[in-house]
């Protein structure tokens, strides 16, 4: 089979069975489950240290209520990190190069932040549509622009991840030859 440069971006199929779910779930196998010991082996200790580092970085600016996002954000971060890094190895497939997966990640999370903001502090979240210190004649135009940017955001996020990974991996392949 002659491999071209774009074969790494095709979703893998085995006899017609899509393997994309497997490739999304596979990185979870690489992390040992933290067992109940207090003093663990080296790998578990390092993994725990990394998790603590990431969670601290994410959660320090937030107040107590924002800490319930800790689990999903940290696990998301670790998942994306592993998926993208594993995609650098030869003969591997990176699920995040598929636009479908990135949109599936982007839309719910963006919508969650939007609705949470609108629900808890509606005036502040609506107030974010207008930056401070704008001259008065520009206000209507600016509100339209901010609303448009808010609605475009999930598309932007999804496409951003896809494009970055695709271009990056492709570039690495190109440079390596």
């Amino acid at each position, binding site marked *: 089979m002659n491999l071209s440069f774009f074969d790494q971006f095709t979703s893998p199929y085995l006899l017609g069975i899509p393997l994309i779910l497997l490739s999304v779930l596979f990185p979870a196998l690489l992390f040992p489950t933290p067992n109940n010991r207090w003093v663990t082996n080296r790998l578990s*200790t390092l993994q725990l240290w990394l998790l603590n580092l990431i969670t601290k970085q994410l959660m320090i600016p937030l107040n107590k209520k924002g800490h319930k996002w800790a689990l999903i954000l940290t696990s998301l971060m670790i998942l994306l990190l592993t998926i993208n890094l594993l995609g650098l190895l030869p003969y591997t497939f990176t699920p995040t190069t598929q636009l479908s997966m990135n949109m599936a990640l982007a839309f719910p999370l963006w919508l969650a932040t939007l609705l949470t903001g609108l629900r808890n502090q509606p005036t502040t979240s609506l107030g974010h549509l207008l930056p401070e210190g704008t001259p008065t004649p520009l206000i209507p135009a600016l509100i339209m622009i901010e609303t448009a940017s808010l609605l475009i955001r999930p598309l932007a996020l999804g496409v951003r991840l896809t494009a970055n990974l695709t271009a990056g991996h492709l570039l690495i392949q190109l440079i390596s030859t």
Partner: protein
Amino acid sequence: VLHTTRALHTAQQRLAPLPPLPEKGGEVRYGLIPEEFFQFLYPKTGVTGPYMLGTGLLLYFLSKEIYVINHETVAAACILSVIIYGIKKYGSDVAAFADKLNEEKVAKALSVKNEAIKDLETAIEQEKKEQWRVEGCKYLFDSKRNNVAMLLETNYRERLLTVYNEVKKRLDYQVAMQNLKRQKEQDHMIQWVERNVAQSITPQQQKESIAKCILDLKALSKTAQAAV
């Protein structure tokens, strides 16, 4: 750590501590293949068995073009060499870092225990000192009692002295008054007697007494002369 938390409740609950982790991990050869594989093949094929198996498999895949050599093979070779180089160079450092993390965790807990023990020991020493102090309290109280008794005694004696002095002053006054009175009476009487005597001496009597005195003196001079 106890078995009270167990995954999906598969095992029985046990309140004894977990067995400790083994000192070293399982033996692996070339970092990938566990030693048990070599031991498994040893009785049938000897020492070179697994190597022959590996070489044969590789040649089979290559010759039958099941695995095609393409640009990704080169990429794989490069990545593999980089990974191996990285592990060889920084492996021990990472292991030391992980060990340090564990050591710090254990040391923190140990320090809590040691600090508690030290605090309790100092508390024991202080308690002993307090007990010794209590024993010495007896002497303290005795000396304090003596002091108080001395103060009372001194005060009493001072007051006695004051009383005595006051009484003496009053009695002296009375005595002085009486003496003065006596003196005055005496003086007055003497003066009265002198006055009366001086008055009673008339001139006639004065001449007679003077003449008598002269006669007596003459008589005495006669006898006196004889005595010398």
